[in-house]
């Protein structure tokens, strides 16, 4: 029996067992509502638009934070990779700020930027920034001396050197930074929403918990799971589209 089939069988079996135990009254609906109840809450949440509007709010935050953080990370990372002096100057700041769990900075950012989406997006962007910057820098630093020699020898300079050699040579590392960045953006988005927001999937989870709508809480978790899976799938599709050679290398 192939592995995926076994995985599926285990999942179906567990959910069926859960449903049967719930129906028989062995599991309290306050602890874990029956799978059918969760699915009903999910469908209902989308029909009334409740879950959809929370989802859209979260998506907006993830996307904005990702866009700002990734762009800044790639630009600064490129500079750090190309200039040893810039790297030496920036390194202490990176070493100081990078280890702070970014959610811990939220109050400070809110004091500066005010209580609202600007602060939340800033924290998400900051969380995305570091892995993007570090991966981009390493991507530039690991370009082989041989490739640079060949490029220079054939007369590559300026923009051509950047677009045909430096950028594509570091792209696989940039994209693996993006994969880390996307997952961090999801993590921090849900976190800032739990830490005081009225909209967003994190807020929905927290509010559902407070008012004991446990089946909505579970439905929200399902949506977050689907969001995470889609985001990772999207990163893989982007990778295959913009760096197809790294796919060929991976599969070798």
């Amino acid at each position: 029996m192939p592995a995926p089939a076994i995985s599926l069988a285990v999942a179906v079996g567990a959910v069926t067992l859960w449903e049967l135990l719930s129906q028989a009254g062995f599991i309290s609906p306050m602890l874990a509502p029956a799978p059918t109840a969760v699915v009903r809450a999910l469908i209902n949440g989308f029909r009334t638009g409740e879950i959809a509007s929370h989802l859209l709010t979260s998506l907006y935050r993830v996307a904005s934070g990702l866009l700002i953080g990734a762009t800044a990370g790639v630009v600064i990372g490129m500079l750090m990779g190309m200039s040893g002096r810039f790297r030496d100057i920036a390194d202490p700041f990176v070493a100081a700020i990078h280890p702070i769990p970014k959610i811990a900075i939220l109050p400070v950012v809110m004091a500066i930027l005010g209580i609202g989406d600007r602060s939340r997006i800033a924290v998400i962007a900051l969380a995305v920034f570091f892995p993007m910057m570090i991966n981009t820098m390493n991507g530039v630093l690991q370009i082989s001396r041989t490739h640079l020699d060949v490029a220079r020898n054939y007369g590559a300079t300026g923009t051509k050197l950047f677009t045909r050699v430096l950028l594509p040579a570091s792209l696989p590392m940039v994209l693996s930074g993006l994969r880390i960045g996307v997952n961090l953006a999801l993590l921090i988005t849900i976190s800032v929403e739990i830490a005081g927001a009225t909209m967003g999937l994190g807020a929905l989870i927290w509010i559902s918990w407070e008012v004991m709508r446990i089946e909505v809480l579970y439905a929200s978790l399902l949506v977050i799971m689907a969001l995470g899976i889609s985001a990772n799938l999207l990163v893989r599709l982007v990778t295959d589209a913009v760096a197809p050679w790294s796919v060929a290398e991976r599969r070798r």
Partner: protein
Amino acid sequence: MTELGFRCDHVSHVFSNRGSVIEALTDVTFSAQPGEFICLVGPSGCGKSTLLRILAGLLEPTSGRVIFGNSDSNLRPSTALVFQEHGVFPWMSVRDNVAFGLEMQGVPRAEREARADALLRDVGLDGFAEAYPSVLSVGMRQRVGVARAFISDVQLLLMDEPFGALDALTKRMMQEELLRLWRLHRHTLVFVTHDVDEAVALADRIIVMTRRPATVHEQFVLPPDRPRGPDARKLPEARETSRRIWDLVMSDIRSPSHADA
């Protein structure tokens, strides 16, 4: 484009990095005729690659100079470097790799692709133009590297142990391929190798270098109209030359250290 000779005139190079100083080359003097096939032979790590980088204009010699052509002008020839197969760019298709030099020169896409495709046919890689190098065998990848060097009509071809990573059979095929292309184009060619038999099979002239700091140990001029290629090594004259070069290299390696003092 006309091929160009050159002369290395007392070329020395010293690397200094955070206090530690490494003498790579010392007082290297030799010359190459236009269209000549030169092999640089010597123990690994002796500075052959450094000399090649100086010839390519990627490094300035610490002292001495390289004079291209007959004049004393500051003429900088067009060069093409070939490394082992890892010099090929993994992010470009085979066609884009081969056409890279032309692209950098600003040759229009249609023309450079046509020229790349013609050359790919010539080296037996037609059908792989769209492929990425990672799907090719090591030997095919090196073929791409060689084709890339031959596409732009450069004056000086510089090859750094290009066949060092190939299996024996592929190496023989590539040597024949290189000789064929060289006879066709008649570039001045400097070929670094530590394989003495390879040098004897290919070169017009073999420059034997000492270990670091490298200098010219001895030169061997081989008859230009002799049979060349992988099978030529079985000829008695070739075996004699090989033996003499081996003796030189080995006695240099075994002699008491003069560099590490």
